[in-house]
């Protein structure tokens, strides 16, 4: 077989032109919203993404056509609801290249991390043991570990970042010690966009038999994720950041690890038998899904990952890279703008400060121009502290954004400087 060897740049350009952003935009009703007579420019995708019709319809269809509780009804509606709920699990499993039994539906990445902290880490931790996180983490991947450290006397250690906001992986050999019980890092930073070399981290940790949890909340909407290839032990993400509904997400755990873990919460649907003398628990994933779950949310998440799979991350990733490069260039050209987070590999996040303009003022002025960005510390205060700023303005992109929208962002920033600078 003859292999096609095009230079990667050529491939990128071809793919970028092949991606029809206008067609995709039509599938997202909120992108048509007008604010103060101006079309919405939605650049807050790291906070939450907009939803395609396929997802909205899947929720409506559930409530209109087959709303019922799952896993217990003998009636037909319940069977249909159960089938659709479990079909969504199959979709998510495929999306991550995991097995069906390895996918647990959770409220979001935050709950997934708490589940692993309490059900996996806590029983194994002794005073003096260590959990390793990075300086780039969202509070959701810091606080649950601090809590479990308080409960057990374990200590939190931190992989430092350099001035460009890349993790200092050279420090890993020193940081992974015989006391390390778990490494928990994000695949992409929510505040700055840095893509972390999680494969290297997994390799370094596994060399010492230390399991690794990856927080994929900011990664899954921008890059293909294959938990088998990554080799990670746990992977979490939130549905609403990947074009699905809020209140639903998924935790992947290696089957052997899940099998050995006690339940996170007790209740219905997670048991095999219950008596006042003894209760035996169901196998994963049911063991970790106590009570009536977010049925419609799971179905919506299934629809979202199916949508994304069909759209093809390999098709829109080069387009997003182009947007990121274009936005970086536009903002860098504005005097007084300082981009925070200039790592080599980034998801499309532009975090910046403007001399003389507080991020909240910039955020308000951009809002008045119909441009939605985030201003603040992005639930990543250690990151802000590292770069010596209390807050940044963050424009975070999705595949449905356009160069024209970035032009509007840049002119909005210039307007903010004109008003306040």
């Amino acid at each position, binding site marked *: 077989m003859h292999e096609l060897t095009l230079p990667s740049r050529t491939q990128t350009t071809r793919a970028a032109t092949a991606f029809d952003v206008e067609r995709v935009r039509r599938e997202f009703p909120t992108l048509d919203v007008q604010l103060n007579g101006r079309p919405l420019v939605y650049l807050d995708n790291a906070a939450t993404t907009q939803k395609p019709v396929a997802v909205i319809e899947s929720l409506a269809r559930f409530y209109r056509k087959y709303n019922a509780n799952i896993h217990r009804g003998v009636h037909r509606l319940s069977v249909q609801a159960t089938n659709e709920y479990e079909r969504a699990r199959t979709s998510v499993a495929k999306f991550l290249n995991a097995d069906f039994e390895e996918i647990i539906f959770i409220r979001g990445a935050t709950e997934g991390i708490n589940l692993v902290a309490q059900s996996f880490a806590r029983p194994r931790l002794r005073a003096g043991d260590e959990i390793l996180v990075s300086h780039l983490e969202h509070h959701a991947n810091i606080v649950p570990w601090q809590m479990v450290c308080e409960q057990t006397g374990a200590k939190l250690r931190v992989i430092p970042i350099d001035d460009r906001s890349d993790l200092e992986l050279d420090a890993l050999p020193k940081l992974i010690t015989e006391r390390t019980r778990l490494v928990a890092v994000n695949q992409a930073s929510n505040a700055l966009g840095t893509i972390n070399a999680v494969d290297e981290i997994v390799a370094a940790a596994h060399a010492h038999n230390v399991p690794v949890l990856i927080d994929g909340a900011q990664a899954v909407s921008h890059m293909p994720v294959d938990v088998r290839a990554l080799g990670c032990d746990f992977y979490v993400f939130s549905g609403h950041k990947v074009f699905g509904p809020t209140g639903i997400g998924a935790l992947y755990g290696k089957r052997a690890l899940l099998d050995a873990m006690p339940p996170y919460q007790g209740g219905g649907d997670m048991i095999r038998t219950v008596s006042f003398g003894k209760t035996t628990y169901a196998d994963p994933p049911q063991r970790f899904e106590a009570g009536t779950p977010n049925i419609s949310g799971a179905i919506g998440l299934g629809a979202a990952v199916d949508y994304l799979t069909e759209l093809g991350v390999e098709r829109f990733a080069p387009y997003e890279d182009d947007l990121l490069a274009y936005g970086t260039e536009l903002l860098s050209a504005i005097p007084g703008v300082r981009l925070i987070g200039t790592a080599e590999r980034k998801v499309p996040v532009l975090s910046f400060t403007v001399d003389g303009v*507080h991020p909240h*003022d910039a955020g308000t002025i951009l809002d008045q121009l119909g441009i939605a960005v985030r201003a603040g510390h992005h639930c990543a205060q250690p990151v802000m502290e590292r770069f010596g700023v209390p807050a940044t303005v963050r424009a975070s992109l999705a595949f449905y954004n356009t160069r024209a929208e970035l032009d509007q962002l840049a002119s909005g920033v210039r307007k903010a400087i004109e*008003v306040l600078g």
Partner: protein
Amino acid sequence: MDEIDALYQEVILDHYKRPRNWGAPEHCDRKADGHNPLCGDRMTVYVDLDGERIADVHVDGAGCAISVASASIMSETVKGHTVAEAQQLFDKFHAVVTGQTGADANDPALQKLAVFAGVAEYPARVKCATLAWHTVNAALSDQGDTVTTE
């Protein structure tokens, strides 16, 4: 740009760019620190008292245009008032910026504070407008700790 002008009025921009009574004084009777953890704004309010009357107010710190201008205008407004009068002013100001029913931005007692009426349209910014007021309140009631808007 009508909406921008409605919030960032000339008076606010002027006080942001040239805040009055700014910087730590050599002496003060009372002081308190204010912190808005959401945006990292920090300020210290210093008060001199003459009996029940507020003889002087200074502010030091950094923040967004709304919080700096509000602190600057607060320092001008409460000076010369009694502690009880300052509290009443804060109540009226708070009602206006939070858009409470019956709040009257045209109440003459508010003086310059009326320029913050636009904040009511921006719930996320109410804490910026009230940080200095919470802080001066803490100084007047002699709460030693840092007050936060959270």
